[in-house]
């Protein structure tokens, strides 16, 4: 069974600061996803990481994947208020029977304050 754990679950940071959200998963996952959810809205895909060492960046967000450590990180650089949202990571079983089933973490609620 794949379990996905994120930390921290709540993060309050000041504008201009850097921080990292961590996503650990319990067994092999053939890909790792990051999503963003604004209050009252649905989920928006940010990144799909497909292989060990994969790094993707968009704007102030950078995601990486270490399959050996079963760890993905989402790094925030010079945070701005617009980044305030809940961020979810999700994994999928590597070759498992439930090919389509993504398992989500509980989410990290990020609040960026001026």
């Amino acid at each position: 069974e794949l379990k996905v754990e994120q930390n921290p679950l709540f993060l309050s940071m000041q504008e201009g600061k850097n921080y990292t959200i961590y996503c650990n998963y319990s067994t092999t996952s053939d890909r790792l996803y990051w999503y963003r959810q604004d209050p009252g809205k649905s989920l928006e895909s940010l990144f799909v990481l497909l292989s060990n060492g994969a790094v993707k960046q968009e704007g102030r967000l950078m995601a990486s994947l270490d399959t050996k450590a079963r760890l993905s990180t989402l790094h925030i650089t010079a945070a701005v208020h617009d980044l305030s949202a809940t961020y979810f990571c999700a994994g999928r079983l590597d070759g498992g029977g439930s090919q389509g089933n993504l398992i989500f973490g509980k989410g990290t609620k990020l609040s960026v304050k001026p």
Partner: protein
Amino acid sequence: GAGVSQSPSNKVTEKGKDVELRCDPISGHTALYWYRQRLGQGLEFLIYFQGNSAPDKSGLPSDRFSAERTGESVSTLTIQRTQQEDSAVYLCASSLVGGGNEKLFFGSGTQLSVL
């Protein structure tokens, strides 16, 4: 349509009633997912459809929950004899399969409130 469409956006029902939630996936997407999100929580997998394969129902919490999909189009999630603990946002997502990406596109959800 351009995105995943869900209806209704909000549903208030009385305990014990049946409800039916609808999802229109992105045209051409063969995979369709239903998730449940309780207030302040993560996403809980319910069911997954892929083409003509048997659906993965492993996430359905009880036999009161069922879902159908007609071909590669509309899906309906039915909850019978609703209970207060069924109150949540029900999210539908669709994706292409193959090509190594398979990014999920989510609908806006149906907010279900069981009184």
